[in-house]
């Protein structure tokens, strides 16, 4: 007990932490979790591998004449789809944290209050990056040969990350509203399946009925896919990039304040 007393009494108060430092501390926490629960990365790796193989070899020949030609079209799209699906985990892990009571402590600390969320999103961005690299490497192995420069490929990935970071705020809202992480998973997937499939990820929308084609063409996922395809193909789809950035900003502006409101008033 004397040791305990000593440890408690002899201390200087550390300086007040800033928002960046606390957000990074939370990001560190989320990344440590990958070390303990490596299964998290299974979804990130397994999903894109499965989708790429399935679409390339089952439908590729019929859709694009040959599987190797279809790969050039598909890989940028699979990159978008994989990362977009990965954003669901932001909501799921937030919901887990809240149900376990860990967040009660965080909320009672004298820190910049959004930092647990911002930290988690920083860590998720690392996860999206891992997913992107896996998709690109898999593509290269199967025969994806981007004609653009390395810079173009990197720019494509960065654009996907920006969009994913903004999209994540929708799932933090869902994660805060619903009771269980299973429900969060279910609802989020139900939302994402139509959004990613009703896009130009897998097929050219030219053969779709007019009303659907209109919907597909204004779907931000299609715009993002077109922009990434262009960047990796060595040219710049300027209009699409601007639209993707606008969509990202709008998502952030709407859903980050809602997230913060729910987070502060959650009990």
């Amino acid at each position, binding site marked *: 007990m004397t040791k305990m*007393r000593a440890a408690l009494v002899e201390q200087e108060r550390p*300086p007040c932490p800033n928002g960046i430092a606390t957000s990074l501390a939370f990001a560190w*926490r989320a990344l440590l979790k990958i070390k303990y629960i490596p299964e998290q990365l299974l979804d990130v790796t397994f999903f894109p591998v499965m989708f790429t193989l399935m679409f390339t070899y089952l439908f590729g020949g019929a859709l694009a004449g040959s599987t190797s030609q279809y790969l050039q079209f598909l890989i940028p799209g699979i990159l978008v789809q994989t990362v977009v699906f990965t954003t669901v985990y932001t909501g799921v892990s937030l919901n887990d944290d809240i149900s376990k009571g860990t967040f009660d402590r965080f909320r009672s600390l*004298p820190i910049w209050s959004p930092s647990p969320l911002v930290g988690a999103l920083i860590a998720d961005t690392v996860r999206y990056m891992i997913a992107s690299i896996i998709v690109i490497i898999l593509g290269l192995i199967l025969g994806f040969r981007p004609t653009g420069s390395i810079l173009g490929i990197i720019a494509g990935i960065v654009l996907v990350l920006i969009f994913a970071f903004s999209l994540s705020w929708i799932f933090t809202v869902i994660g805060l509203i619903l009771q269980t992480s299973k429900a969060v998973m279910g609802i989020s997937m139900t939302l994402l399946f139509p959004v990613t499939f009703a896009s130009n990820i897998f097929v050219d929308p030219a053969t779709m009925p007019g009303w659907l084609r209109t919907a597909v063409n204004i779907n931000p996922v299609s715009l993002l896919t077109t922009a990434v395809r262009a960047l990796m193909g060595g040219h710049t789809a300027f209009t699409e990039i601007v639209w993707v950035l606008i969509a990202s900003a709008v998502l952030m502006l709407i859903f980050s304040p809602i997230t913060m409101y729910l987070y502060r008033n959650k009990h």
Partner: protein
Amino acid sequence: MNNDMDTNNQPLAIKATGLVKCFGKHRAVNGIDLAIPQGTVYGFLGPNGAGKTTTMKILATLLKPDEGQAKVMGHDLIKEADAVRSRVSLTGQFASVDEDLNGIENLILIARLMGYPSRSAKKRASEILEAFGLQDAAKRQVKKYSGGMRRRLDIAASMIVRPDLLFLDEPTTGLDPRSRNQIWDIVRALVSTGTTVLLSTQYLDEADQLADRIAVIDHGKIIAEGTSGELKASVGSGVLHVRLLDPSTRDRAQQLLSEALSAPVHLSSDPVALSAQLTRTKAASEALAALDANQIEVSQFSLGQPSLDEVFLTLTGKRADSEKQKEGAKS
């Protein structure tokens, strides 16, 4: 006299008036007043669902009260929430540590959040871990900790920067007696360094051991307040428990006991058991003699210290565990 002082002119850690918190129609906290002097241990005693946790959450700025106001360490709970947060710490009813991380990582995280730069965060974390006797479990995932270890880690996390006021929400619920004693020792050590502790518990003996003053809470209200001696005196000298050989004699025994003790006799769900409050210890032997004189055979009898249940019985006229059963039925 300053508003933040108590009657002996001691500074107050908590000064609250008329706190109310509703969840829908349910008034979880229904008008609570508090004046807790600094440097003391104050106990909230009450059954599940009495409003103890909700009151603590309000005072730790996690919930906004619907009515009433409070000052914590001299700062207004609502207008100066950040100042309050920097002076208090909360350990929740369910250990608020990260189960997936190991012990040292949990403490490093809190140290970094409290403003320690990376290297000193590690130093401070291992220092505290050792002080709480957890150094051997530093690299073990908290998931694999025992209940007692988890609780100690939870309190340790609150001590990275020693708070002026610590909220301990049911720190020993579900722990074995040895771990419970360890937690009690920790609480005593904390108080000796000047931290004020607000502790909630379902056990009278725990409040008795640790708290300078106790508030008995039921249905979101404080129904009695005082030192443990004062509370026990209000309950009487304890309880006489009797077990009969033959259940068919219980009605007669109830009548005899209530005459001999001039107090209501409680029938337990066990068909041979009865219990009654004592106002004086000697009455117990007279009551047993009365049973004997009427040929009612007793298989077992005992004199109990007043328990939380009895405090409740006396203060509210109903048993505390009926409340627990209701809670159980709800969930």
